[in-house]
């Protein structure tokens, strides 16, 4: 919990990691990919405040103690959602697996939600693994990285028939939340790998599932916004937005937040620190203090304390059924979903 000016904020970090990426786990023959990936992540950390930067050695191999201190002790987080990314072609035993996350989570009851993942290219065996993970770890969410390299394939679309088969099975198993992370490759490579239109199809065809688009579809924010306006079950995951822009480029951060509040709305935006890329502490503190910098932003939806409480924790708590202490809840009539109404007005006027 974070407290400022008498207001209490329940913090759910809905997108964070516990990875292993040191040279000792780089797959032989794929060392350049393993090195390139973690160096790329490390460069993202460079967009946060200087005093929060880590040396690459720590960044590759941060420990359980680092995580517990940074996220919970210093970072105000009440509940954190592990989002696995396997990358087994590059890292022996995987970069950030369900098992590794859950093993840490089991030592700290009540602190973590262990999401799992699937890759629709893994066939029947992948479906069985998904069922085993759901049963063993009680996962109600999955993280999907569509640009993962798998056996010669550079990626997939969520609208592919093989993906629908997995989504159907996931739903049967009780999965509610699908976190989608787009990356730079897909099949075929001449298409835009970051395109989010496949999520649009899924959101329509699986109305019972929630689709949380991580880093708000960056670098395709505009396409994401048009889609999210039309799909009630599409959410904006703010990982990278707060971490990558709030400190480094405050003016563009304000523009992006304004657009998201307008098109997506404060009820469908969720905070994620993307730890270990960025520590949550400065992100939570900075976001609670944040407002538009000037009058230039007067035609964007207002940002209230209720807006921030929802984004920092209450929205994700709803998605995952997390109980929120009464002192952190909003009064029933507080906070208006203005953005949805505004967007609907724009739509009806078109």
């Amino acid at each position, binding site marked *: 919990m974070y407290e400022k000016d008498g207001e209490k904020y329940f913090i759910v970090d809905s997108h964070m990691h516990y990875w292993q990426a040191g040279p000792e786990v780089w797959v032989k023959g794929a060392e350049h990919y393993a090195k390139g990936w973690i160096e790329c992540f490390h460069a993202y950390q460079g967009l946060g405040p200087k005093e929060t930067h880590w040396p690459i050695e720590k960044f590759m191999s941060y420990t359980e103690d680092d995580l517990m201190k940074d996220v919970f002790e210093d970072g105000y987080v009440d509940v954190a959602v592990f989002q696995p990314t396997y990358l087994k072609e590059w890292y022996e035993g995987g970069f950030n697996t369900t098992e590794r996350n859950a093993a840490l989570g089991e030592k700290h009851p009540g602190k973590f939600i262990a999401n799992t993942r699937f890759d629709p290219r893994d066939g029947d065996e992948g479906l069985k693994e998904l069922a085993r993970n759901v049963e063993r770890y009680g996962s109600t969410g999955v993280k999907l990285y569509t640009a993962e390299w798998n056996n010669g394939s550079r990626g997939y679309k969520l609208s592919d028939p093989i993906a629908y088969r997995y989504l159907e099975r996931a739903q049967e198993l009780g999965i509610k939340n699908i976190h989608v992370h787009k990356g730079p*490759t897909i099949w075929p*490579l001449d298409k835009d790998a970051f395109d989010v239109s496949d999520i649009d199809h899924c959101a329509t065809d699986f109305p019972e599932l929630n689709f949380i688009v991580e880093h708000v579809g960056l670098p395709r*924010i505009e396409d994401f916004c048009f889609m999210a306006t039309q799909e009630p079950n599409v959410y904006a995951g703010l990982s990278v937005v707060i971490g990558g822009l709030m400190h480094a480029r405050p003016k563009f951060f304000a523009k992006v937040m304004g657009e998201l509040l307008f098109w997506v709305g404060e009820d469908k935006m969720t905070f994620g620190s993307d730890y270990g890329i960025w520590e949550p502490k400065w992100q939570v503190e900075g976001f609670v203090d944040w407002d538009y910098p000037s009058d230039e932003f007067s035609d964007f939806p207002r940002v209230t304390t209720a807006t921030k409480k929802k984004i920092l924790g209450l929205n994700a708590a709803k998605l995952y059924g997390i109980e929120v202490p009464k002192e952190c809840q909003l009064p029933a009539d507080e906070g208006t979903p203005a953005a949805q109404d505004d967007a609907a007005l724009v739509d009806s006027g078109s």
Partner: protein
Amino acid sequence: MTVTATNTVVSAALEALTTVRDPELDEPITALGFVASCQVSCEGRAVVRLRLPTYFCAPNFAYLMVADAYDAVTAVPGVTSAEVILEDHFASDQINAGVAAQAGFVKSFDGEAVAELGNLRAQFLRKAVMAGTDQVCRPLLGAGVTPEELRVLTLGAVPASPELDRLRERRAELGLPAGDDAPLLIDPQTGARIDAAAVPLHLRKARVTRAGIEANTSICSGMFKVRYPDGWTP
């Protein structure tokens, strides 16, 4: 940036590289700092080295930049042959070899691509047109011009500005109306005039498209600066 052989051919090659844009960010690769060096030997052999914000930048856009740089430098008078080398990228070998052999994207990524990149380029040019529409319209709206007035405005009636020139260039590149009589507000797909009722949404879409590109540029330039601390050209 390293420049050797201080002759007019090098200057001309660098000038030619300013016409090469990052298709996603719609900025010249020279302004983004992506040109690490440009050398031309006495015999006219040009060697250009490019570098990008990350090791995993999308290979299709990377290919376009390398291929466009090759075409731009090859066309410079005095350049007899050109080599463009993308450094520090997961697909460097495939891209560099493919562009050197003038093989096209499909052959360069054998079995992994089904079409050349013209559609991808056009898709991002349309985004650039939308973003450019906001760049031109935002100051006009700020000065009190109404959306309805914008709708009936022609390009020739908009006060001259670098933003307007840029918008016209992008529209012309797509084969969209770009002359003085052309409407300021058009559908970037079809070139059709925007209906009165659709103007508010069109302007909203233009604004968010610009915000998206600006946010990407912020992140890419930030990443580039972390990766190459000495290489940044503002």
